[in-house]
Every structure is written in C-alpha cells, then in structure tokens.
C-alpha cells in the first residue's frame, strides 16, 4: 500500500485535474517555483500559461479568476497565507459567491481557493496564523477542511469540479500527515466521516485536530468510549451524519481551531441540540474569544486548542451526564 503525504495528495489532485480538464488552470503567488511545496513541478508539466504566477495583487487576481470562471474556465487560486483571505473576502463573498443569485441563475463561478498551511505554523505570528473557515461557512461559501491525505486529494478534486466557489483549507498541522492510501477518489461535499467508533461521547474535530482527537480517544480508551467524527466539509455540513452519531452517544464535544465567539463549534452545537436531547451539556474546545496568535511558541500553543483541554472536556461531559 503506497504511503502518501497530505501535501503530495494536494499536488496529485492539482496535477490530475489539470490533466483531465483543459478548463482548469492554477494561479497564485510563486506557484511556478512552488513555494508552498504543493504546486511543485506543475508549471513544468502543464506550462506557465496554465500555472500562472501573479503579481502581489490578491484582490485583482481573485476577481480575475471570477471573470475567467464566468467565461467558462475553472480557476484554482493558491493563497500561501490564510490571512490573505481577509484581503479577498470582498472578491470571494461579494462577487464570486453572489453572481449566480444576483444574475438570476445566468452563470456559475467555479473557482477553488486553496489555502495550504492554514492555521498556526508555529512562529509565523499574528498575521499569518489564522483559521477563518467559520467566516466562509457563515456567508455560505462551500468550505472544506480535509484531515487526511485521502480526503485532501478527494475533496480538492471535488472542489475543482464543483460549479460554485469552494474554499479548501489545508491546515499546516495536517500537511505532513502520511497515510497508506489505496485509492485516490473524489470525496463528496457535505459528507462527514467517523474515524473511530465509540459509545459514550461524540467528539467532532476539524482538520488537523482530527488527529489530536483520535490520539486523545486512544489515551482515554480504558475510561471512556469516544467516537471521533470528522465533518470534512464545514459548509454544507453533514448534520444528518452527526445527528446519527450523537443520537447513539448522547454526548457532544467539539474541537475547533477557530475563535470561540460565532465560531464553527458554536454552530455545530446549536445544530445538534436543535435535533437531539443530549445526556449532558455539550462542550467546545476552541481558540479563545478574539484570539490573535502571539509569536513566542509557548504563547502560540497556549491559544490553540490542545489535547489536554479536549481530555478535560470529555471528562467533564461524562461527569455531567452521569
């Protein structure tokens, strides 16, 4: 069984889609050299017309992609830094996302915004370490956060083939994950995945945190039976899949690398408690309210959700419900 890294899975997905569909092209900063180590080799293989380096004009090249999509192409933009999404929020949300409705269904805007290395990259400090996936889920842009190499491949392929804009967050904390991968196949949007079955509590973990949740579940295995649910897509969210899980376990903890207020964890909990009567109050482990990641490594780690916090939340929710 071949070993594949998450990063290489993204490269494979880009290469396969560029090869499969002439309408696909890639643009972004330093993509020809492959500064993110994701687009490595693609310019040589597909040419610099289809793998285009851009000037540092994020707003213009994001809307350029919108225009190209309106004209029938399928652009993929790579953003090296997650916080650049703040700069182009206008172009994605107010233009690309709104065009189909505003034109009364005259067009589609199939653009993929790929963000390799989202979240903390330890030491990259305040302006390079955000994880703003909840913002896109809030405004209704399709948002995916794969946790594993197979899902990174499958969801990126699906995103590129999708007829609406999709933001693909590839967390820094997952980029070096390696897995044995048999089949590389498209993964449907809006369908979660249970990584580990359990009976007592459902832990929803997003992106790289899936691996932390699995580790904590194993550590606590002799005390509590933890189910780990990976939504994979945050919008649209697999609420049916999660409801099924929580209906069995009766307890819910959410592990989310976003800020607490108005975050993804809040939305997930609200969506579940609208449908399921829990045995204990749900809990969430997140970054603090309004967090800005400080530079010093110990401080950076201190504001990210951690395994100890998750273990504590699991214990508390078990205690509450007993």
């Amino acid at each position: 069984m071949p070993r594949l890294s998450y990063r290489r899975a993204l490269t494979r997905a880009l290469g396969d889609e560029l090869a499969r569909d002439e309408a696909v092209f890639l643009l972004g900063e330093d993509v020809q050299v492959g500064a993110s180590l994701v687009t490595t080799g693609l310019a040589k293989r597909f040419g610099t017309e289809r793998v285009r380096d851009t000037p540092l004009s994020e707003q213009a090249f994001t809307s350029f992609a919108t225009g190209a999509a309106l004209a029938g192409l399928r652009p993929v933009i790579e953003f090296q830094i997650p916080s650049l999404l703040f700069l182009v929020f206008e172009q994605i949300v107010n233009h690309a996302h709104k065009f189909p409705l505003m034109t009364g269904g005259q067009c589609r805007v199939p653009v993929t915004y790929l963000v390799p290395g989202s979240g903390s990259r330890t030491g990259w400090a305040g302006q390079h370490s955000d994880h703003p996936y909840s913002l896109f889920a809030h405004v209704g842009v399709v948002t995916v956060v794969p946790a594993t190499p197979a899902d990174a491949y499958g969801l990126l392929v699906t995103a590129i083939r999708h007829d609406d804009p999709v933001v693909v967050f590839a967390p820094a904390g997952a980029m070096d994950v390696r897995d044995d991968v048999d089949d590389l196949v498209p993964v449907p949007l809006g369908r979660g995945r249970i990584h580990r079955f359990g009976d007592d509590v459902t832990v929803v973990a997003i992106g790289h945190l899936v691996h932390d949740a699995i580790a904590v579940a194993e550590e606590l295995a002799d005390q509590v039976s933890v189910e780990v649910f990976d939504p994979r897509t945050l919008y649209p969210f697999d609420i049916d899949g999660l409801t099924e899980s929580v209906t069995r376990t009766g307890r819910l903890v959410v592990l989310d690398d976003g800020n607490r207020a108005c975050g993804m964890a809040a939305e997930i909990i609200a969506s579940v408690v609208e449908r399921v009567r829990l045995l204990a109050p749900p809990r969430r482990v997140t970054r603090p309210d309004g967090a800005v990641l400080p530079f010093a490594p110990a401080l950076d780690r201190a504001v990210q959700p951690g395994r100890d916090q998750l273990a504590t939340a699991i214990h508390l929710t078990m205690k509450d419900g007993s």
Partner: protein
Amino acid sequence: MTDADPVRLYRTVRLIRRFEERAVELVHGGQIVGGIHPYLGQEGIAAGVCAALDADDVLAGTHRGHGHVLARGADPARMLAELCGRVTGLNAGRGGSMHAADLSIGVLGANAIVGASGAIITGAVWAHRRRGRDTVGVSFFGDGAVNEGMLLEAFNLAALWRVPVLFVCENNGYATTMPVAGAVAGSIAGRAAAFGIPAVGVDGQDPETVRVAACAAVDRMRAGGGPELIEARTYRFDVHHTFEHAVRLDDYRPPDEVTRGRARDPVRIQGERLTNTDRAAVDAEVEATLDAAVRFALSSPEPDPADALTYLYASGLTVRTGGG
C-alpha cells in the same frame, strides 16, 4: 459591428434617455423600489463604446449601469421588468438596477461595488482568448473608482498580461458629492500612464466622438495591443441616486454648473446629425418600444417568495431555511 450609422447611434442614446426618464417616473410612482442611479446625461459614452464592439466581446458596468446594458442590446422590456423586480426581468428579479446582467450578450453585469469591473473583465477576456476567441472587453467605471486599489491592480494585471481591455472612465466630475478635484491626486490619464496603458481624453457628450475613439482603441487591441483607457468627460444631468429627489442635496453642484452641463446634451448633439424625419421616426419607435416595455414590466408576475434563494448555488446546493 463598429457601427458608424448615425441613426443607430441616435437611437441608442435616445432609448437610454427615455428609458431612464420612464424609470425615474416608476421610482416616484413606487413601482421601482430602492431607487436608481440615473445615467441621464452620460448616454453618449455607453452608446459610442458599444457601437465599437462585436458579438464575442464582453463588458461590465457600474451602479449607474442601465446605459451599458441597453447599449449592448439587452431587451428594454426585460431590463425594465428587472428594475421592477419581476420574474420576467433579465435577472429574474434577483438583481435589480445595480446588478442587471445579460450574459447571453456579454454583459457580465452592472456591479454595485465601485472599481470591481476591471479585474473581472480582465479575467473574462483572458479566458475567452485562451479558448480561441478574438474577444475584447470593456470595463466601465466612474471617476470615483480611480482611487480604488482593486481597479489599479486590474490596470497592472491587464497591462502586464496584455489583455485587451478598454478601460472607460466616465468622469462626470463627482463621486456622489465629492468633486474630482477633492479626490484625485494627479490625473486619471496619469494613472493609466503609470502602467504603460495608452490613454485618451474625449468629449463624452458627443456619441460619435466616443465611438470613433473606442473603434480606434478596439482596432489596436484586436491587432495585438494591450489595454487602453478612455477618459470620457461627461456630466450627470440628474441626481447621483433618486433618493436625492427627496433629500435635495443642493449644495454640492452650483446651479450655473448644472445649467452649463445640461447644455451639452448627447441626445441633442447626435439628433442634430439626423434629418427631422429620421429623428421623428426614431423617437416614435423608441416611445412605442418603451410603452410596450412598461406594460410588459408592470403586467409581469412578481417572484414567488418560496423561490427567494432558488439561484443561490449554480451547483443546486440547497440550504436550511431560517425559521425555527
């Protein structure tokens, strides 16, 4: 097309003029909600530029965008129905005045965000040409947009990648109430020059002058040239937005300036190039077209609230409702 027929050019400016006057009436009558940004006085620019375009070309406009859509050849009845929020509108009643679009004729939409059209058109033209077409594009914007970074970034991209986009600045002297002198350091042409983009200034009140300048630019672009810029000096005859009819922002434009501005009327200027008979025939035909457009718009059904988000996703993704 590169249409040099003075009658057709007159018809376009006359159509836009009367469309806008009828639309203002419908705003005051309550049939158009949310108001409009009338294109009155600026008709010669859309008419002249669009006369230089071919079928494969694309354009995007502004919040003051009715003229661009009509000059490109959209059905005035469906355009008016859109303004009235009817299902028969160009955008099925989902866009309204500031988002009117007709992609079937290359109108990628009016756009309510100042300076947004430049990069979108640059991408669309680049994509069409990659697919083997001889497309050129037009990005219309006002003098207010020349201080938007997004537009200046688009100048750079279009020039750098030699994408044939005609940037048309409709300089009507004011960004809402802010005069150009209070907002623009340097000059509009100077911004183009900074990116190596050839720029010309023209009298935007003369539709034929605009047409000739646009044809020359389009010819150069089709011959392999990069983007160009036309600064069309113009004057907005009426309000920035129809809300001004109620709040009466009288202070920002001196009365004698308004009188002088209105004296340079593109409809009159182009009309004088026709015989009285031809002009009367066009006027009558435009009136009949707009009578029919008003009847069509007002007799068209309103959209069903159950379908409010029907077109939200091209992929057909469905969403949760907002109710309890």
